[in-house]
C-alpha cells in the first residue's frame, strides 16, 4: 500500500506534538518520496542529529517503506525566526 501524505501527516501528529507541519509528496503520488518540515517543542535542546534520530525512530515503520524521506526539524522559536526573515 502506498503511503499518502495524509497518512504520513496523521502518523507524525500521533507520534509527537507539532506546532506546524508541512508535508510535500515529491513522488507524483506513488508515495515514495516525501519531504517534511516539522515544528515541535520536542526538539528543544536537541541538536539536528538528535532531532532526526528521534523522528526516524518515531516514524520507523513509515520511513522503511518510503524510498526518500527528507526532513527539516525546527523548534517553535526557530520557526518564528525563520518566518520573520
Amino acid at each position, binding site marked *: 500500500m502506498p503511503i499518502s501524505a495524509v497518512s504520513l501527516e496523521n502518523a507524525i501528529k500521533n507520534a509527537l*506534538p507539532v506546532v506546524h507541519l508541512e508535508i510535500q509528496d515529491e513522488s507524483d503520488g506513488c508515495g515514495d518520496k516525501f519531504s517534511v518540515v516539522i515544528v515541535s517543542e*520536542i526538539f528543544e535542546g536537541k541538536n*539536528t542529529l538528535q532531532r532526526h534520530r528521534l523522528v*526516524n525512530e518515531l516514524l520507523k515503520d513509515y520511513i522503511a517503506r518510503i524510498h*526518500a524521506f*527528507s526532513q*527539516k526539524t525546527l523548534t517553535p522559536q526557530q520557526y518564528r525566526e525563520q518566518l520573520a526573515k
Partner: protein
Amino acid sequence: MFRPILNSSLRIARPTASTVVKARLRAYRYLSQEARSTIQKAIEAKPLVLFMKGTPDAPQCGFSRAVVQVLDLHGVPPEKLQSYNVLEDPELRNGIKEFSEWPTIPQVYVNGEFIGGCDILIGMHQSGELETLLENSNIIPKAAEEPAQTTSS
C-alpha cells in the same frame, strides 16, 4: 539525553524513551559481531568516510550526489575521503543502517563519528558548521591558512 523526551512524553503520553531504547537494543542484536567490526574498520579508514549510492564520480542517487557536491565545494581532498558504494554490497547497505541506527543512505562519518545524512550535511553546510567541523578535524585547511590564489590556469 533522554530527559527532554521524557519531559514532553509525560505531558503528552506519547511513545516514550523506553520504546526508543528497546528498538536500539534490537537493532544492535541484529548485526553480527563480525559485521560490526568490519564496519568499524570501514568508518575509521579515512578522516572522512561516506557511504553512498554509486561513486563520487558517478552518484546513483540525488541525495548521495548532493553530499558529494557539498564535500567537493569545501575542497575535501581525495586522500582524506573514503567512499563506499552500498549498491555494490547489499550486506554493507543493510549493515550500515543498523550500525549507525540511521535508516537512509548517504551517511557521513568524520573521524569515526556519525555526522548525519543528506539533510543534516546540507543544513550544516548552510549554517557554516560543516566548514568548522572539516577544519577542526584537519580535513581541510583553516580558512586563514588557505592560499588566496585559487584560480586555475
